[in-house]
């Protein structure tokens, strides 16, 4: 069929191909670039509007996700959100390559369990790191301490390699240190510890650490401390402890009034039971007038804390607490500043949480079915952590809650998946690809 036989107003594809030159070729490209530029403009305006209407939250209100690599397990101290690496293989070999994701607030301290494959006695497993931004952390244990994002942030003075490294460290390396692990059996060389960035440094002393702590605190200001102390008399009065803000004691609490500047108290690791202090004894906590973050340990065999007494701290911003099943949560309404709450209890009645107008993060590790309806009125909630079992059994409840709280991320540990919005990406790419393919075919025909 000759081209002359085609009707003049035939379909463009049926017309003989024409070579476009100069301005006509330029115009021929317009149908692709025009919509593309328009789409970019729309997206750009949308992003600009979003940025103007949603300024980044600051301070305590901000909650971000931290991806941690190279850890066997990680724990957020304030919300007690514990995540472990998924085990691989029947032998339970754990790969440190996969990521652990934790929800954090600025200034949260993370406990990182990092191993380099040595025995547990190597002293390179447990480290603490304070997050300032929602960045990814790549952790790696080295002979002398801990590296995060290829920067040495922790030094282990229980090892000769640690002492040697610190002795040779430059001023910049010393300033970058965030964790200092001391030996409880050997008096620390105080000269080695000079010029460290003490306001940012967490001092960790394993074992019975009264004497080592007394020595260091006599000369340097300690702002964050992790220790195991039975007798506070020897160290409690040290001038260096007056500046203490973060305290993670394993064992007894300091006597009431001894350390009143403490802002964060993470009392007692899980599994730690041998302590002379009783969890009901809140005298020391009452004295801490600046306390904003509190983790309260489970009371032996009772599994219940005196919530009414804990709630006597109206400035509390973060609370994690173990409670009996069916405990009354109404004392929490006396904590108007509460932003992060972790409730270790089964099937709690969440009705009082409606009154917490600033609650941003709620962690419910319970595996029992929980009535989530009261949370539908918690409009400030940004992150809700529920166990996988609850997520599995209460899908409809969680979907309804999500409808009521579209801004809230409900983290069930399920990971990343796609959503209906990805159709936009698919359609955009399809239009571009289809048009490119069509032009290519037309070009091929024109060439032939």
């Amino acid at each position, binding site marked *: 069929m000759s081209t002359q036989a085609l009707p003049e107003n035939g379909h463009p594809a049926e017309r003989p191909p024409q070579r476009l030159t100069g301005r006509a070729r330029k115009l021929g490209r317009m149908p692709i670039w025009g919509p593309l530029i328009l789409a970019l403009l729309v997206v750009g305006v949308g992003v600009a509007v979003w940025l103007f209407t949603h300024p980044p939250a600051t301070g305590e209100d901000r909650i971000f996700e931290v991806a941690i690599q190279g850890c066997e397990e990680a724990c957020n101290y304030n919300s007690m959100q514990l995540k472990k690496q998924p085990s691989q293989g029947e032998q339970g070999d754990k790969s440190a390559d996969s990521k652990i994701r934790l929800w954090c607030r600025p200034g949260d301290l993370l406990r990182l369990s990092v191993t380099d494959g040595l025995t547990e006695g190597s002293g390179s497993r447990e480290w603490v790191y304070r997050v300032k931004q929602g960045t990814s952390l790549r952790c790696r244990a080295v002979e002398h301490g801990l590296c995060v994002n290829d920067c040495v942030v922790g030094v282990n003075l229980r090892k000769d390699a640690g002492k040697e490294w610190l002795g040779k460290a430059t001023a910049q390396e010393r300033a970058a240190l965030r964790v200092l692990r001391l030996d409880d059996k050997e008096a620390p060389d105080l000269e080695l510890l000079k010029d460290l960035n003490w306001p940012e440094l967490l001092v960790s002393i394993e074992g019975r650490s009264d004497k080592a702590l007394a020595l260091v605190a006599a000369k340097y200001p300690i702002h964050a401390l992790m220790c195991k102390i039975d007798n506070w008399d020897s160290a409690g009065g040290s001038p260096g402890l007056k500046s203490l803000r973060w305290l993670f004691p394993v064992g007894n609490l300091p006597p009431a009034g001894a350390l009143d500047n403490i802002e964060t108290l993470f009392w007692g690791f899980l599994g730690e039971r041998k302590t002379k202090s009783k969890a009901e004894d809140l005298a020391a906590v009452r004295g801490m007038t600046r306390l904003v973050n509190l983790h309260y340990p489970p009371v032996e065999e009772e599994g219940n804390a005196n919530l009414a007494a804990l709630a006597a701290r109206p400035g509390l911003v973060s609370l994690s607490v173990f409670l009996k099943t069916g405990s009354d949560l109404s004392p929490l309404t006396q904590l108007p500043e509460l932003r992060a709450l972790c409730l270790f209890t089964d099937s709690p009645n969440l009705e009082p949480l409606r009154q917490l107008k600033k609650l941003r993060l709620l962690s419910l590790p319970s595996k029992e079915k929980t009535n989530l309806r009261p949370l539908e009125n918690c409009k400030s909630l940004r992150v809700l952590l529920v166990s996988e079992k609850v997520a599995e059994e209460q899908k409809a409840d969680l*979907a309804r809650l999500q409808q009521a709280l579209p801004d809230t991320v409900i983290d069930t540990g399920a*990971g*990343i998946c*796609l959503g209906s919005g990805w159709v936009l990406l698919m359609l955009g790419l399809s239009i571009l690809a289809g048009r490119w393919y069509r032009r290519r075919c037309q070009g091929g025909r024109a060439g032939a």
Partner: protein
Amino acid sequence: MNAPQARRIPWDAGALVLSMIVFGFGTQRAEWRWASCASLAVAGWIVARWGVAVPEAPALFGLRLRCGRFLPKLLLSLAVGAVLAIAFHAYRGWDWLPRGLTWFAVIAALIGAAEELIYRGYVYGRMRAWGALCAVATAAAGHTLYKCALFALASSLAELLFLAGATFLAGLLFGLMRERLGSTVFPLAAHAAFDVLVYGAWAGAPWWVWRM
């Protein structure tokens, strides 16, 4: 020759509907994300290869702007979308109209428009050779199955039945709009108006949109 060629079995439309269902269902679980991703890619390939790249693409998608009484028809479509949105609000027990709009209104409108291009555009366009009724019903059914797949594991049976019924009826209405008003622009406008009024006041995308 043209008639039999036009009435060929629209396997590409069927494959598109199926891949969208698999995509929707795959969004439910993180471990299915690769299947979801792959089916979305297949859907995209079908739209690109047999939709956008073919010479009859404008007629297939029905994006005609030059049809008689365009403005009145457009206003009518927007009104249809608004009425559907108000009905949905009433069913949910919300205020009849949203109090203000956020940036997400733009995304919501785009997502609604994208769904219309796929179902009232491509699927309807391919099925039209088999008759208007078949085209309208197939497009509505495909859209309904996709929506149900998207919420299958996150909704109760009663909610799924409501979703299926509402989506199918709205799909029939949108299909009729394309058939009678002569362009996909009108159901697209109605769907976009519906999404803007239902989701436009939300401060962010709900969980089923990005799932990140």
